[in-house]
């Protein structure tokens, strides 16, 4: 004789999979998320490597007046486009078209003032609302260096050490490694990879509890020779299966995309093999089951599908909370994080992406921190289901 739990599970799955909305949701969250992430990162990589590949386009008005400056710009891989006189409007037009990072306008009397050793005016026209600010700063850096060089030369000619101009010497050391810099970005990506666990089981969980009450089939079901834990367990597992499949697919697709992208270009790392990913997927299985258990335990108290959906849309905010708190308080990764569902999964994947050996404990903790509450909740729901009110209030 087949287990009653399996009978219920199979029937609920069959019924759920016949609903097109559910399948659409599954496809949307499992596939769209990773593809979206991949697309965003691809854009980011593209943008950050653009200046190296294509150089910086700069328009200069009156370039002939400062040949040394122009050659110094050229050394920094900045392509100078000499232009005739332009009025304000024409410059704005040029910047809006994004054909140039900035427009330098050398004053008409640039040469004269330069030789007279008075400050020679260079105007920088730029559009701060575009994304070329870092490239514009590079141009300004060249201008400053040029200015300092000329000043030093002039002082030297007057017998003054140029060192007098530099009371301090600034030297920058960036201790951010690839891994730590990528942690932020990876963290936000990883954050959303686990939400499908909470989204995909909702409709099945609600439909098999509140929906069954609304359609008045619950009484018939409860009059069958099956224990409430078999009925609830079957419904719970059916809802979980959807979330597990969706979340696992999403994680795998995201992994494939992240492995394929040249992440090192933007200082990110994804040091995960397929074996590691399989482990992450495995310890994430209970998270889906926790979500399903939570939904079932709550939805069974609602008399209609609609009522349950409204109630559960509040619960869907829950998985956002731990990640939000951690990022707001700027908490460092700590052992206790592996005891909070969702957060533990996020932390685990984040630490694994950085590379390094974690040991077995975080995996076990991540697994148990979802699995235990899930079992408790579904046990409680089964026990509650024995109450007469679920038969009466149909």
């Amino acid at each position, binding site marked *: 004789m087949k287990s009653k739990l399996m*009978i219920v599970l199979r029937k609920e799955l069959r019924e759920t999979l016949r609903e097109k909305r559910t399948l659409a949701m599954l496809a949307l969250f499992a596939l769209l998320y990773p593809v979206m992430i991949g697309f965003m990162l691809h854009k980011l990589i593209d943008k950050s490597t653009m200046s190296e590949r294509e150089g910086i386009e700069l328009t200069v008005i009156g370039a002939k007046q400062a040949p040394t400056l122009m050659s110094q710009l050229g050394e920094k891989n900045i392509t100078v486009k000499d232009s005739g006189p332009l009025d304000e409007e024409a410059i704005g037009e040029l910047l809006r078209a994004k054909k140039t990072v900035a427009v330098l306008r050398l004053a008409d009397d640039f040469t004269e003032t330069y030789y007279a050793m008075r400050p020679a005016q260079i105007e920088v026209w730029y559009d701060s609302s575009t994304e070329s600010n870092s490239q514009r700063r590079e141009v300004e850096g060249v201008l400053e260096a040029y200015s300092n060089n000329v000043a030093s030369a002039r002082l030297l000619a007057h017998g003054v050490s140029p060192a007098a101009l530099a009371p301090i010497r600034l030297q920058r050391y960036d201790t951010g490694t690839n891994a730590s810099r990528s942690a932020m970005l990876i963290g936000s990506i990883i954050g959303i990879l686990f939400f499908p666990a909470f989204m995909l089981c909702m409709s099945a969980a609600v439909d098999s509890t509140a929906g069954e009450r609304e*359609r008045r089939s619950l*009484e018939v079901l409860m009059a*069958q020779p099956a224990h409430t834990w078999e009925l609830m367990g079957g419904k719970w597992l059916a809802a979980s299966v959807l979330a597990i499949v969706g979340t696992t697919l999403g994680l795998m697709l995201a992994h494939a995309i992240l492995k394929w992208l040249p992440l090192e270009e933007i200082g990110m790392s994804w040091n995960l093999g397929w074996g590691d990913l399989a482990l992450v997927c495995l310890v994430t299985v209970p998270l889906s089951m926790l979500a399903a258990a939570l939904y079932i335990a709550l939805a069974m108290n609602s008399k209609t599908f609609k009522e349950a959906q409204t109630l559960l849309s509040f619960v869907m905010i829950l998985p956002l909370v731990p990640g939000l708190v951690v990022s707001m308080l700027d908490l460092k990764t700590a052992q206790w994080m592996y005891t909070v569902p969702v957060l533990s999964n996020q932390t685990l994947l984040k630490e694994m992406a950085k590379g390094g050996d974690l040991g077995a404990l975080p995996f076990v903790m991540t697994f148990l921190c979802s699995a235990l509450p899930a079992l408790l909740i579904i046990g409680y729901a089964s026990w509650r289901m024995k109450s007469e009110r679920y*038969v009466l209030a149909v």
Partner: protein
Amino acid sequence: MIEVHDVRKKFGAVQALGGVSFTARDGQITALLGPNGAGKTTLLRTLVGLLKRDHGTIAIDGVDPEKDPMTVRRSIGFLTDQFGLYERLTTREYLTYFGELNGMDRAAINRRTDEVSELLGMEDILGRRSKGFSQGQRIKVALARTLLHRPRHLLLDEPSRGLDVMSTRALRTALNALRADGCCVIMATHVMQEVTALCEDVIVIAGGHTVAQGSPEELCRRTGIANLEDAFVSLVGTEEGIA
């Protein structure tokens, strides 16, 4: 055999059952008559152990549904006032689901599905999903589910509602066959014709109390009224009947 003695049930301040006693014998169809709100549905739910009684005893072939609900439910076919169909399942899938829940194997389910669908004249809807079924088709599917596992006891809550003439006759044939098999059938109904045609025994309940039990002829004799409907009204008490 279903034996009920002085069963009482209270919901909050409302006394739904105030003392119901009767015996429904095997190989008989027992009618459960009572005005709306008399406690028929509550009684049937108590018999399968969905509700717990506050007082009294129930024995279904000697088993108390509160102590061993699984055994009791296995031996009962329960047609509720709700059909409990699943719109996305076909009739055959629906019957298979409940057959499996009652511990039947596939071969038995297939055999019984064919038998009951022939009995109820519903072969045409076996492969269809129940979405869009008419009232008659719905109750046929629910009836088929009730009969599928060959229960020894049948609790039927208004089984003939919404059925056309042919289907009503088919139902009558089915009930006669069950009686011949020695099943114990309790049927809540409002149709007096059915009671006269089918039932050996009648239980009349009103306001949560058993008012009378006996064959239709006995009830008529006791009230001194020849017509069962009038006899019923007189037993229940006119005012309550109207309310």
